[in-house]
Structure formats: structure tokens, C-alpha cells
């Protein structure tokens, strides 16, 4: 659910004026592309691996029913239970019901975008359950009552000063000096969360992948928090999207090789854990109950359509990290759980185009997202499709529609087009000033582009127009 007062342009302006966010985004622009390419350069044949990854995901999606049933069969054989949820509400009911039946009071979670999508925390808290996020970034924003601003680094928008102040407000302990040092913050959060881990009744994780061949739910983290969430409480619930299933361990191997390299520029995350069912008779430890909630919530409606390809997404975040729009405004501006190019494609499908029409428009269609996507999702094409739908459905802004109509009229009336273009070119030349390095530049325009000219200029038009050159070309 998106707040009714959402307005993408207003949120973007606010984001551009946030110094901490801008510093983080600047760091991201500077580092992430280089880290990713260096990590991928270490692979003997990246292109072939990427093609194989795309095939793996397509194969699983083409036979989604088969592999989900196969997965379910394995989980049941290992002693687990699989639940199917058509909607967010159904999923939340199932999870809350399981917690209540177990007499649970305290729930711990590891970061999961699906649970953000279905607003599981709110649903559980409404039923009187205490929920604690254990991924450090997610824990910080939970304390602050905020939403994630990046699918992998949810607290990207916060600086150390803000995090320190948050801990000082929420962690009860004696302090002689303010909390300013990252190492101290880590020690403090680790100690706080250790206590929470030990006292929890239910652990909820997402899953990066489900493997049909063995019935594994695969958890990938650098912190190791998902492993503790899965191991310590008496009940472990996995909440994940139906599209996460892959056929075999070999498919998993292909995707794991690409995931961390694309995401953080490392060959593998610190911990990759395959979970199969509850503890076995004779096991030293582990939860006695294991449940998987398979969430649809709009995914199956994409199957068999031109948008099915977005379901290949493995949530690596490479498209966010390389997007000129995301890295300028960050995730909150999108007003949705999923941000960046993948979010701009997914969100209209989940929440309806009418309330999210600005998201597919927020792209330069430069194509970097498709280039870096490890499963080769044609994000620009999918964004354009949403734009076409928006225009056909009359959802675009009136000013945009009027401008497009004017453009259409001009483009189909060559005489007027030539006249208008000639007038604009002459006016721009008149307003330009001589540049130090020779030629002429535009430094400002009276009624247009103040934001642009505040930080950069434009070359003035020079020479004849394309049409004039075309007419006088040698036969």
C-alpha cells in the first residue's frame, strides 16, 4: 500500500536536498560499478554464465507449477509444511495463525523484501506479537520507523551520526560519551540482538531461492543473521515469492556465482545456507516446526504475458546501483518497497498502474540496467510497455499529453516544423555567449531549465539544421 499523499516529483526533490542520502548515493555511483566489473572479470566466461542463468530462470518459470509441486513434495518429505497464499492478506493470516497456534510472543526476522511487500510486521504487531528485525540495516530502520531505501542496503540513506543517535535513543545503557564510532555501534547492536535471538519463539526468513530438486530454501547473507533466525527459535517460517524456485542444485550454482558478484562485487556472500525441513530425530538442535509460505500477490498474473521476464529477477540490486535516476534520488522517492528499474517495472504490476504511473516514467531508458542485469531482463522495454499502457489508459499528466500532442502535430506538418525549429535556433543563438575555449555556450534561459543551468551549460546550436543540410546534399 502506498500512502495516498504520495507524489513522486515532490519526494524526488526532497531526496535531492538530503545531504546524507546524497553522500551515500555518490559513494555508490563511485564504487559499485567498478566493484561489480572487477568481480565479474574474475569469471572465465561471464557472457555464457549469464545466458545459462537466464535459461535456468526461464525454465523454472515456464514450468512453475511443476517445480513448486516438486519443491513442496520434498519439503513435506523432510517433515515441513507448505502453505500457499494468493494475496498479502492470506500470507499474513497464515503466518499470524502459525505464531498464535505456537503461543508465540516474540518473533525475530531476517531481511526479506517479500515480507516488506506484504507488510507482515504491521500485521503481526496488530495481533500483539513483538517483531524484531535482525539484519543490521533493517534493525536500524525498524527502530526509526522507516522503510528500506535500497533492496540490499535498507539503511543506505542514514549516516553514522543518525545511526548513533538512534541507538542512544533505543538501547538502554550507561553512557559516558556519545556514540560516534562504527565499531562501538556494531558491538552494541550485536549485544542487543544476541539477547533478542535467545528469547525468540518464532524465526521468520525470506528465501533467495527455493531448490525443487532437494526442497532447499536458500538463505544468502553476509551477517549470518538469517542462519541464527533459522536455527534458534522452535519454529522457522520461510515467507517467499512463488517465482523463487529453481529446478536443480546446478541452477543454484549458476545463480550463486552471479548473485554476489552483481550485488556487492564479491565472489560469494559470507553465508549461503540451504535449509531442509525441521530438525531431525537425533539432531543436536534446530526448530521442531518448519513452514514455508509461498506468496503469489500478483506474480502469477504476469506469467504468460510480455512482462513474465521480470519474474526472473534475483534481487541483486545491480540495476539500482547503476541507474542514473536511482543513484540520484535513492529508494524512498519511489514510494514503493521495490525501487530502481526493477521496482519501476514490478510496482505497477503489484499496486496498479494508476497509482504508480510516475515510476516507469522515471527513467532515461539509457539501458545500463539491462546491461548489468545478471539474468538479462529487458528492463527498458518493460518500462516502455508501462508507459504505452499509461498513455492508452489516459493516466499520464495532462501537461505531458498536451506536449506530446503538440509534438505530434508539428512532426506531421513539415512547413510549420521548419518554421518553429528555425525560430528556436535563432533565439538560442541570440541568447548564447562566447565560451572561453571558442564557440558559443548557453548559460541560462529566461523561462526554462533553471535546475539544469544552475550546475551546467549547453552548447549553442551551430551550422545549418539537419533538414537544410539534407536538402542541399550532393545527389
Amino acid at each position: 500500500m502506498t500512502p495516498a499523499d504520495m507524489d513522486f516529483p515532490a519526494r524526488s526533490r526532497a531526496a535531492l536536498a538530503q545531504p546524507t542520502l546524497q553522500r551515500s548515493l555518490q559513494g555508490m555511483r563511485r564504487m559499485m560499478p567498478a566493484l561489480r566489473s572487477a568481480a565479474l572479470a574474475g569469471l572465465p566466461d561471464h557472457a555464457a554464465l549469464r545466458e545459462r542463468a537466464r535459461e535456468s530462470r526461464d525454465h523454472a518459470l515456464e514450468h512453475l507449477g511443476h517445480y513448486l509441486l516438486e519443491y513442496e513434495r520434498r519439503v513435506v518429505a523432510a517433515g515441513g509444511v507448505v502453505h500457499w497464499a494468493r494475496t498479502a492478506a492470506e500470507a499474513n493470516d497464515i503466518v499470524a495463525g502459525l505464531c498464535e497456534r505456537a503461543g508465540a510472543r516474540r518473533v525475530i526476522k531476517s531481511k526479506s523484501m517479500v515480507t516488506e511487500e506484504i507488510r507482515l510486521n504491521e500485521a503481526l504487531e496488530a495481533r500483539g506479537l513483538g517483531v524484531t528485525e535482525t539484519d543490521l540495516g533493517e534493525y536500524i530502520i525498524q527502530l526509526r520507523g522507516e522503510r528500506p531505501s535500497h533492496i540490499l542496503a535498507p539503511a543506505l540513506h542514514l549516516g553514522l551520526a543518525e545511526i548513533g543517535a538512534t541507538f542512544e535513543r533505543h538501547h538502554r545503557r550507561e553512557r559516558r560519551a556519545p556514540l560516534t564510532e562504527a565499531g562501538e555501534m556494531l558491538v552494541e547492536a550485536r549485544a542487543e540482538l544476541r539477547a533478542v535471538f535467545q528469547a525468540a519463539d518464532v524465526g521468520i526468513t525470506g528465501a533467495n531461492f527455493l531448490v525443487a530438486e532437494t526442497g532447499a530454501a536458500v538463505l544468502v547473507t553476509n551477517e549470518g543473521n538469517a542462519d541464527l533466525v533459522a536455527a534458534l527459535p522452535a519454529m522457522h517460517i520461510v515467507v517467499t515469492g512463488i517465482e523463487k524456485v529453481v529446478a536443480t542444485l546446478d541452477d543454484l550454482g549458476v545463480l550463486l556465482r552471479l548473485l554476489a558478484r552483481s550485488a556487492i562485487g564479491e565472489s560469494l556472500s559470507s553465508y549461503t545456507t540451504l535449509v531442509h525441513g525441521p530438525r531431525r530425530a537425533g539432531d543436536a538442535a534446530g526448530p521442531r516446526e518448519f513452514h514455508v509460505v509461498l506468496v503469489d500477490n500478483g506474480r502469477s498474473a504476469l506469467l504468460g504475458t510480455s512482462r513474465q521476464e521480470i519474474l526472473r529477477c534475483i534481487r541483486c540490486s545491480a540495476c539500482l546501483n547503476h541507474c542514473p535516476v536511482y543513484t540520484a534520488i535513492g529508494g524512498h522517492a519511489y514510494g514503493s518497497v521495490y525501487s530502481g528499474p526493477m521496482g519501476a517495472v514490478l510496482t505497477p504490476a503489484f499496486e496498479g498502474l494508476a497509482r504508480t504511473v510516475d515510476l516507469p516514467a522515471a527513467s532515461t531508458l539509457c539501458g545500463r540496467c539491462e546491461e548489468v542485469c545478471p539474468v538479462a531482463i529487458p528492463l527498458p522495454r518493460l518500462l516502455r510497455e508501462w508507459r504505452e499502457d499509461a498513455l492508452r489508459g489516459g493516466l499520464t499528466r495532462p501537461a505531458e499529453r498536451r506536449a506530446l500532442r503538440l509534438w505530434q502535430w508539428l512532426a506531421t506538418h513539415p512547413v510549420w516544423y521548419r518554421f518553429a525549429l528555425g525560430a528556436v535556433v535563432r533565439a538560442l543563438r541570440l541568447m548564447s555567449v562566447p565560451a572561453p575555449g571558442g564557440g558559443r555556450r548557453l548559460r541560462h534561459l529566461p523561462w526554462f531549465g533553471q535546475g539544469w543551468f544552475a550546475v551546467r551549460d549547453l552548447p549553442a546550436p551551430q551550422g545549418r539544421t539537419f533538414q537544410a543540410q539534407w536538402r542541399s546534399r550532393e545527389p
Partner: protein
Amino acid sequence: MNTARTAMLAVIGRHGAPPAPAAPPVMSTEIVWAERARLFTAQATAGAATVVTVPTGAGVGPAIADYLDGARLGAEVHLSAPTRAVAGLALEPRLSCRAGPVPADGATLVSGCLAAVAAEGVVVLASGATHAAQAAFLAATHIVVVEAGQLLESLEALWQRLRALPAPLPRQISLVCGPSRTADLGVPSRLGAHGPLRVHVILVGGRPAAR
């Protein structure tokens, strides 16, 4: 051609008696192991783990004691998933071995493993009767002993090994490639977010361990 064949074999035959030879020499496991160990070390080190190799199981105890001395971590260790070399540590005079679950933060865990994968620099831990999955995450220092036959080349070899286990697979199988870390407090990443601050791997050499 037949003449040439006969003539040549007549000469060659004098240099090797005709009855079928004994089996030809096989690829040395020590060479294969050494190659994998080198790759594993490079990859695991990149993941901020530390790695040492010892020629036989007998070297594991002293290697652990040296590591703990060097890092000033005391002599007390908890044992888990005891493969042969790990079980043998009970006799190591420089270590004091504890049984039972890993207690609060600060403990050192020494465990065996299911396998290790050279290409990715990961050790693979499996939960079961002798190993509680959380032990490897609650400890502050985790020392993993990898026996020679457990060092595999690739993820695909690991999948083969998992397929050979009886179904269902162990409840929690973790591929670990270094200490726990987080980038949520800015870059560079910080170690010891939830799990261990130190992961130290001991590769036991390519010679079959002496029984």
C-alpha cells in the same frame, strides 16, 4: 603396414615383457590436493578467512594451539562435528577441550565439516547429531578442520556429494566463506556483525591420514 608393425613390436617387445602389465600409475592425490589447496587459500583469504595447511591429522592440534597463542585467544575450545582429526584434539596437551553447546560470545569453536570447495573458498557445515547449526554463528572464533578427501574442486562436485547423501538432506547446510560482516555502518565492511569475527581454516594435507 603389417610388416612395419611386426618389426616395431619386435623391437619394443624386447623392452617390456609381453604378459599384461600391472596397473599404470594414477594421478597423485597429493598433486590434485595441492592445486585445490592453493585455489582454496586464495579465495578464502579474499573472503577475510585465514588458512593454514598441515601435512597430516597429527599436525592439527599444534596448528590450532599456535593460532590461538598468536591471536591471544586462550586455550579453551569447544568441539563440534568431530571428524577424525577433530576428535583427536581431545589428546592435544596445549588445548583444553569442552563438550556441550557453545556458550555466550567469546568462545572458540573447532569443528569438522562436510566438505570444502576450492573454487569458491568455502567450507560446508551440516547440522546433525554432532553439530548444532548455531554453534558456528554464536562463536567469536571458528576454526574449521578440512580433511584431505573433503577438499572438492567446484560447487558442482559439492552438489554431487550432497546427492550421494541419503534424503532428506541435513536440515541446515551452510557454505561459509569468511567471518560475518556488514556494510550497514558504511564502507569498508565491518567484521563480526552477528557471527564469528574470525574464521580460520586448517587444511589437512593430501596424504591419507595415518590411522
